[in-house]
């Protein structure tokens, strides 16, 4: 199963295109076009949880699935429309009332539980360290009140920039608890190469990006070194390596180009097609497969679906520019 920040959508899509059995516990009929499905958060991940940017959000999702946690202010509103605060991109126009949002969420959590229990590989793309937290309950939200919707008391929600130790501890907790639920579960972690467009940290966005990516990459490294059942995929390195001179970014210097996505996914598939032995990927990297794959990325392989855009919440970016 796949989860993570918006770059993680590329991973899931590439795997599906190559006939990996990617779990989808909230599938739509195949005749529904991707444009409609993605607009409502379907076909993005193994359940309809939308982008999960921080490890804390991931743990919190597991808490909710296991019934040990209920978010503070789970329903936000905009005018007379009501939104799931934990996954703002799945219903762009909201629902009719708060009860409906909670009922949709209840069913979604049941489907997420089925994904957790049936997967034997969990692929997670770490995206951000910055998040918005409810001070009383420590509920983490993917964005700030006042962006896509709000609550009556937005002052209860404040900015938090997760540290290395917090992020590592969160994912370790997630891993431990997932292994309890599902003993066969293995993990593949990666860091999103997409830089921040805005930050609420008060730092310059370049400084904030460097901090965030450094923390996330270091956490991935620590997890890979510490656990036999955790593998690392270097999408971050493929895209951001100085040797590539930024060629894998679009003109806005933020969005990863199609060639970049292809290079990263080619490497991913080269490493993982077949029986997926735990250390194959690292071996490929050591052998210079990153460079080889980058060259292959320039070839004109046509993959229509691969060209589709991923869904990132611009409202999230807005949140960090506040």
């Amino acid at each position: 199963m796949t989860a993570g920040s918006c770059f993680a959508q590329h991973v899931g899509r590439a795997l599906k295109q190559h006939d990996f059995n990617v779990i989808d516990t909230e599938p739509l009929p195949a005749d529904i076009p991707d444009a409609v499905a993605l607009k409502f958060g379907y076909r993005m991940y193994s359940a309809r949880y939308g982008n999960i940017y921080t490890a804390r959000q991931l743990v919190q999702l597991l808490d909710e699935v296991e019934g040990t946690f209920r978010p503070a202010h789970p329903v936000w509103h905009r005018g007379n429309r009501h939104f799931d605060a934990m996954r703002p991109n799945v219903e762009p126009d909201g629902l009719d009332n708060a009860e409906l949002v909670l009922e949709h969420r209840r069913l979604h959590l049941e489907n997420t539980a089925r994904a957790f229990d049936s997967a034997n590989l969990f692929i997670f793309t770490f995206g951000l360290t910055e998040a918005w937290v409810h001070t009383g309950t420590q509920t983490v939200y993917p964005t700030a009140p006042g962006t896509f919707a709000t609550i009556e008391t937005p002052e209860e929600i404040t900015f938090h920039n997760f540290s290395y130790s917090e992020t590592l501890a969160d994912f370790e907790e997630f891993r431990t608890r997932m292994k309890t639920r599902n003993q066969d579960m293995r993990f593949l972690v990666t860091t999103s190469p997409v830089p921040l467009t805005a930050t609420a940290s008060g730092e310059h966005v370049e400084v904030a990006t460097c901090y965030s990516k450094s923390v996330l990459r270091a956490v991935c490294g620590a997890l890979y070194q510490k656990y036999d059942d955790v593998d690392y995929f270097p999408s971050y390195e493929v895209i951001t390596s100085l040797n590539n001179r930024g060629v894998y970014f679009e003109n806005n210097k933020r969005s990863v180009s199609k060639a970049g996505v292809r290079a990263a996914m080619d490497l991913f598939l080269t490493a993982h097609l077949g029986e997926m032995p735990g250390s194959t990927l690292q071996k490929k990297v050591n052998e210079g497969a990153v460079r080889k794959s980058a060259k292959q990325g320039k070839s004109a392989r046509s993959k229509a679906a691969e060209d589709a855009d991923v869904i990132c919440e611009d409202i999230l970016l807005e949140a960090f520019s506040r």
Partner: protein
Amino acid sequence: MKRILIMGNSHTACIRKAWNNMGGEVPFEIDFFVAIVPHARHLRLNRNLEYGDIDNSAPRRITKILKQLNGCTVIDLKKYDAIIRVGNRTFPTDLVIELLDRFDVDGLSLRESAHRLSRNCFAGMAEPILHKHAKRAVFNRKKGWDDSAPPLIVAPAPRPSEKMLEEMANGLLRKNPHPLSEALDMLDEKFSHEVRKWGVRAVIPQPPKAISSSGLTHNTYSQGSYTARGELHNDSDLTHMNVAWGELRLKQISDAVAELLT
């Protein structure tokens, strides 16, 4: 006597058969023009309102088949007081069955499904399809149907036989098909709204007598249906209807034309 043209695809067959049986009871002169589905996509309506202009990619046999079915290959719509477009799909019923067999939809009857679809999401899925089908009903004319042409009435294809439900539904719809009926009614209403925006003067609903509680057509109406060439369909055909259905439809058409032209 007013003269109307009933034109469409294979779903015209049952209406034509019905007219043969009860033609005298219909207070209009009726002509038929039929183009079966794989051929219809090669036919165009030109600026002079002549339908049957065949594009270059069409197989040669189309001309021969059009002549066999209609005695001509081109029909001039200007000669008629009203045009009845028959057999257009409003929405693919199989897709609705597939969806509702697994999903509850906000606003429709609920069955405690593990999957729930919002009303907006359902509408988001339906709208592009309804739009495409509505455009087809007005011959894909960019500006729709205008007053310079005879008034256009749309009589959509029959809903498939309820046997389709038995064949396709394995989940929620087996236990409770009620939301299917609600969804099909809702989609028909949206289709009607959409084609009216394109200048269609009236949309004829499904004959109420023929509709079962599931919202699909009673099995009895799909038994003994005919092809456009007048041959019997086999029993596995679930989408075409027989003469009894054609009679219901012809009566509806007659009423709609009378209301429009008087």
